[in-house]
């Protein structure tokens, strides 16, 4: 939407109304994190700013376009809208974005089939000319999360939007994540220079290896290669698909002595938060005794050369597989990430390899569920049949798992995804609170693009409401699975209980699952986590009073007057000269000493003239009255001086 007046400040104030679902609040917070990771748009709780976004649970999902500058601007996240893509979509509207197919040039790219649109809904296919709406010099984006799907407002089964390039017919209408063009436009509209929480990404395709350096004081170096003796044969970013590309970093442990180390250090990084997530793919083809450690080199005034601090040792036996790892960091000063490879005892035919490193100021996902040969599983699993992840134990003690319908559920052809609590250790389960209160489980199918900012991962979250009942029963849905679940047998014969599933039958279409890089090297990766969001149950605090500074934004002092707080009121202090001054509640009037003299003279003259007029009038009236009296007495009386 063209017009600077429609822009928000880059930190947008928000207020969660009490009627919002708790899960919705949690998903909105996740959507805000995506904005922070990929753009310079940030969000903060409303603290009395003049304009803010009030998020409430209306009947449906909707928003205004742009900052309407009306103080409280509403945005509805109703039932069924608590999906991250829907929330990002509505906030994009609020930030000033129309739908993609309403662009001025849309007829060059799509054909609107007017006769297939429901009667009376034609207005949904408006377009705006380029004086109202700007495409910000970004090409038409079929992959935008602001684009309608081909079935939007259809009155039958035929598509209402036909893309001129047929390959994009099923691309339009994605509700997964921001596309590259969505981000480009948002970053251009708000003049973003850097995202708020992103720190670094590296796929080692460029020779400068993203500014990484070989550390000092080690015995060996990491090498940038396209294949390594003993494996891997390809990198992870490109999986060897492109000749002349596909680099990764490798530390060979074939030669050298036990204890030899190689340090690979990132460029200098400057954190904003005091927590970070390091994510990378790791291939271990060396001896089981070889190891990879993650360190940080922290700089401060006392240690200008930096101090090394150990974070984590990456464990695991050699495997012919690029494995995904997450390491949580907690750094608050200038730092580097250090990958330290060490040759262990024994002979080796390979080494340690790294690829697709991403560092962001976000929390790490807790659990990884990798499904090998995923395409084959999608094709060969009978419809309506679920496969289950291993049981994962969260940091709160609860165990849970994901049930996935790779070939659709009984009610939908789309992949379904459901989360269940499971029974875990008897003792631990006995100490937990049941029904499980306000735990949000997130199931994310990871888009395995090398750059975290370009990923369009598909995620859904559900939250355990301790008051929710099983339909048609008095049992609590999120109660102890031993009580409310069913006994099942694991692949290794272990028996456990699985609680009822909570999720969606329309998690992702199979066509979208086959797109982008959801499947890489044949495998799909689900990232699962459980977070306590009970802090979102209580009302968001209202600003105590309107901040004093802000009251001064409400009045404008003219003629260089200055606004100051007079008690709890804002007042203008006007400019005063030697013989002049401004006055009025906005300093809109001017006066001076000369004005005073003139005023005095004028008022004296006026008073004199008025008194003269009054005197003359009185004299004339008296004279007339006397004369009339004399006439009434018959010609009048002659007064004599009888005593003369």
């Amino acid at each position, binding site marked *: 939407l063209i017009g600077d007046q429609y822009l928000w400040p880059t930190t947008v104030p928000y207020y969660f109304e009490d009627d919002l679902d708790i899960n919705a609040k949690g998903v909105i917070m996740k959507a805000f994190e995506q904005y922070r990771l990929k753009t310079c748009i940030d969000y903060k709780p409303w603290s009395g700013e003049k304009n803010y976004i009030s998020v409430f649970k209306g009947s449906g999902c909707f928003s205004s376009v742009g900052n309407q500058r009306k103080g409280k601007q509403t945005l509805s996240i109703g039932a069924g809208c608590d999906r991250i893509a829907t929330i990002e979509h509505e906030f994009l509207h609020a930030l000033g974005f129309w739908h993609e197919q309403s662009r001025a040039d849309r007829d060059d790219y799509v054909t609107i089939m007017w006769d297939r649109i429901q009667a009376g809904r034609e207005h949904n296919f408006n377009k705006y000319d380029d004086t109202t709406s700007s495409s910000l010099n970004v090409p038409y984006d079929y992959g935008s999360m602001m684009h309608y799907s081909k079935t939007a407002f259809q009155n039958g089964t035929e598509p209402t939007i036909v893309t001129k390039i047929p390959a994009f017919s099923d691309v339009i209408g994605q*509700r997964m994540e921001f596309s590259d063009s969505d981000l480009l436009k948002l970053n251009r509209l708000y003049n973003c220079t850097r995202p708020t929480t992103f720190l670094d990404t590296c796929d080692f395709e460029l020779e400068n290896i993203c500014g990484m350096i070989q550390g000092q004081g080690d015995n060996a170096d990491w090498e940038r290669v396209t294949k390594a003796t003993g494996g891997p044969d390809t990198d992870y970013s490109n999986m060897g698909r492109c000749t002349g590309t596909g680099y990764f970093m490798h530390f060979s442990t074939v030669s050298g002595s036990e204890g030899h180390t190689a340090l690979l250090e990132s460029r200098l990084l400057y954190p904003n938060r005091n927590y970070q997530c390091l994510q990378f793919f790791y291939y271990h083809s060396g001896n089981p005794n070889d190891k990879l450690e993650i360190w940080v080199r922290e700089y401060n005034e006392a240690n200008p050369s930096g101090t090394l601090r150990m974070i984590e040792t990456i464990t695991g036996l050699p495997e012919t597989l690029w494995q995904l790892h997450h390491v949580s960091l907690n750094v608050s000063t200038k730092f580097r990430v250090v990958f330290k490879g060490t040759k262990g005892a024994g002979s080796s035919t390979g080494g340690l390899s790294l690829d697709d490193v991403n560092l962001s100021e976000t929390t790490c996902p807790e659990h990884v569920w990798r499904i090998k040969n995923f395409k084959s599983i999608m094709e060969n699993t009978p419809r309506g049949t679920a496969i289950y992840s291993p049981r994962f134990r969260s940091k709160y003690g609860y165990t849970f798992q994901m049930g996935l319908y790779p070939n659709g559920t009984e009610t939908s052809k789309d992949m379904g995804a459901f989360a269940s609590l499971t029974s875990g250790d008897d003792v631990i389960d006995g100490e937990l609170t049941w029904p499980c209160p306000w735990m949000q489980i997130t199931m994310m199918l990871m888009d395995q693009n090398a750059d975290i900012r370009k990923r369009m991962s598909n995620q859904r979250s559900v939250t355990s409401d301790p008051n929710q009942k099983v339909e048609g029963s008095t049992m609590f849905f999120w109660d102890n699975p031993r009580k409310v679940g069913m006994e099942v047998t694991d692949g290794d014969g272990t028996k456990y209980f699985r609680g009822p599933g909570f999720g969606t039958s329309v998690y992702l279409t199979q066509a979208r699952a086959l797109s982008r890089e959801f499947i890489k090297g044949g495998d799909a990766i689900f990232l699962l986590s459980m977070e306590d969001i009970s802090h979102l149950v209580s009302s968001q605090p209202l600003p105590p009073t309107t901040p004093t500074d802000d009251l001064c934004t409400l009045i404008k002092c003219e003629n260089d007057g200055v606004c100051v707080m007079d008690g709890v009121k804002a007042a203008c202090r006007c400019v005063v000269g030697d013989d002049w001054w401004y006055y009025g509640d906005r300093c809109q009037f001017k006066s001076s000493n000369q004005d005073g003299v003139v005023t005095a003279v004028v008022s004296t003259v006026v008073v004199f003239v008025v008194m003269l007029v009054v005197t003359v009038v009185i004299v004339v009236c008296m004279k007339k009255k006397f004369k009339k009296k004399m006439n009434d007495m018959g010609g009048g009386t002659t007064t004599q001086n009888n005593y003369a």
Partner: protein
Amino acid sequence: LPTSKVTEYDVDGGKEDLFAVNQAAGLDLFEGDILYDEEQVRNS
């Protein structure tokens, strides 16, 4: 392994995206999900 079917609750009821949600809610907003006031219409 094959297991007995556990109860499952579908939060979406089959509705694939926000436009389906809004239609099911009986909303007829501008372009499906936009709050649009008269002034904006006139400006546009």
